């Protein structure tokens, strides 16, 4: 019986080299000198190579309820325009576990379990938009190999990004 289990596990691994993959993401929110400075809205999500949306990995926006028409800041989610088109407008992703308040400048770590359905290479998307500031968008292909590291240089509203593919094997 025990031998069977090991055998089956080995079978699974050999059949699907892309199971149990984890993406470690390190992302910097740049310290931008601006007056007034508002923390950016940030969305990180995965897509297939055909740009079919997979799921949101993180959505940071103003979750705090404020008086007046501003409310809880959801009215500006659409300003993360790529994310809004791909996932935001269609799915309730932005109210489940992946959302959080805006972050102050600094370096943040995230990890994401790649769904087994997503085999081989796929796309990671990063979008940041800041009030009285700008918008930046990066799309990175990762996952062609089970392990590896991709570094994305900083650009305006997005600081440096490091993506580390890890396999549980």
């Amino acid at each position, binding site marked *: 019986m025990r031998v069977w289990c090991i055998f089956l596990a080995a079978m699974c691994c050999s059949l699907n080299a892309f199971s149990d993959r984890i993406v470690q993401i390190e992302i910097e929110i740049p310290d931008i000198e601006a007056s*007034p400075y*508002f923390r950016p809205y940030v969305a990180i999500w995965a897509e297939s190579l055909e740009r079919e949306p997979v799921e949101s990995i993180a959505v940071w926006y*103003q979750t705090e309820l404020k008086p007046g*028409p*501003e409310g809880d800041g959801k009215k500006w989610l659409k300003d993360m325009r790529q994310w809004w088109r791909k996932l935001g407008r269609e799915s309730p992703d932005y109210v489940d576990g992946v959302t959080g308040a805006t972050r102050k400048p600094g370096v943040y770590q995230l990890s994401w379990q790649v769904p087994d359905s997503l085999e081989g290479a796929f796309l990671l998307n990063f979008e940041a938009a800041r009030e009285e500031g700008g918008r*930046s968008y990066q799309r990175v292909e990762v996952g062609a190999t089970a392990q590896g590291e991709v570094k994305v240089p900083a650009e305006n509203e997005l600081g440096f990004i490091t993506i580390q593919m890890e396999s549980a094997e």
Partner: protein
Amino acid sequence: MTVFRNHFPFKWLAFASLSLLSTMAMAHGRWIIPSDTIVSGDTPTPVAVDFSISNDVFHPDYSYGGIPLTLLSTGQSEKRDLSSPRAKYISELMASTRFAVYAPDGSVDRSAAIVNLGRKSVSATALSQDGSYRFAVEQNPIYFTFYTDAEGELHREFGPVSDVQTWLPEGTTGIRGMKLVNRVESIVTRNAVSDIGGAASPRSGLDVLFEGHPNELFAGESAQVTVYFDGEPVEEGVTLKLTRGGTRWRNDREIIEVATNKSGQASWTWPQAGFYLLELELEKDGPSPDATKERYANYLSLEVNPE
């Protein structure tokens, strides 16, 4: 000296939202855009205007002033809760909004109706004279009261100190007042240009005068202005910020910033055609307890023609 900076669109925090944060929250762009800045011909020509407060330049977000469309459509006005001092103050402020037309003969007309469309307010006038008109959105000055609460947190409230302090909680410290004077304007000329609104000299408060005429602007050409306060050229460096409309469709706002020299002058070259929003601010010490600081902010919409 022209400096391009990486700044872009956005507006999470509107004037009307009254989030208690920094004084700079008031610096969100206000603007008025006329349907034309140059008209020709001998018959009175209607010119329509849109005005709004927004972060994306010339993309309306928050209307201010005017008769609500629902009132015109249904004859019913929306019930508003004006029980709080803040709501009452803002309501009065909005009700003071006028579309003012300064004609080439020096007359001023504030009688045009304004319609509030929720995201922008609109009005119109007809140009019956030849020469240069000044279009302005005018409001009462806005008073703010800043204070620190018992927990040490800084707050900003609408209204003059003399009103606000009557209902502030106990333990409040550091109460101080500020007065904000906005000029939201554009310039429109029928046939030959003239002194704008019939006046050649700078007005009291913060004013900008062009060398040449602001209805004769072309891409590739330079602009030179002098910034005045109470009729005198400003001595300190005042920053002029120029943003071309359409920030919504570019990730980089492509802002031009220029500072005045010791004679209050500044110059730049128009990089391309379009409507530009010229913004500048000046802070002064104020004489009254309601306004120990006075902040003057000008927003001037300028149309630049292709070469």
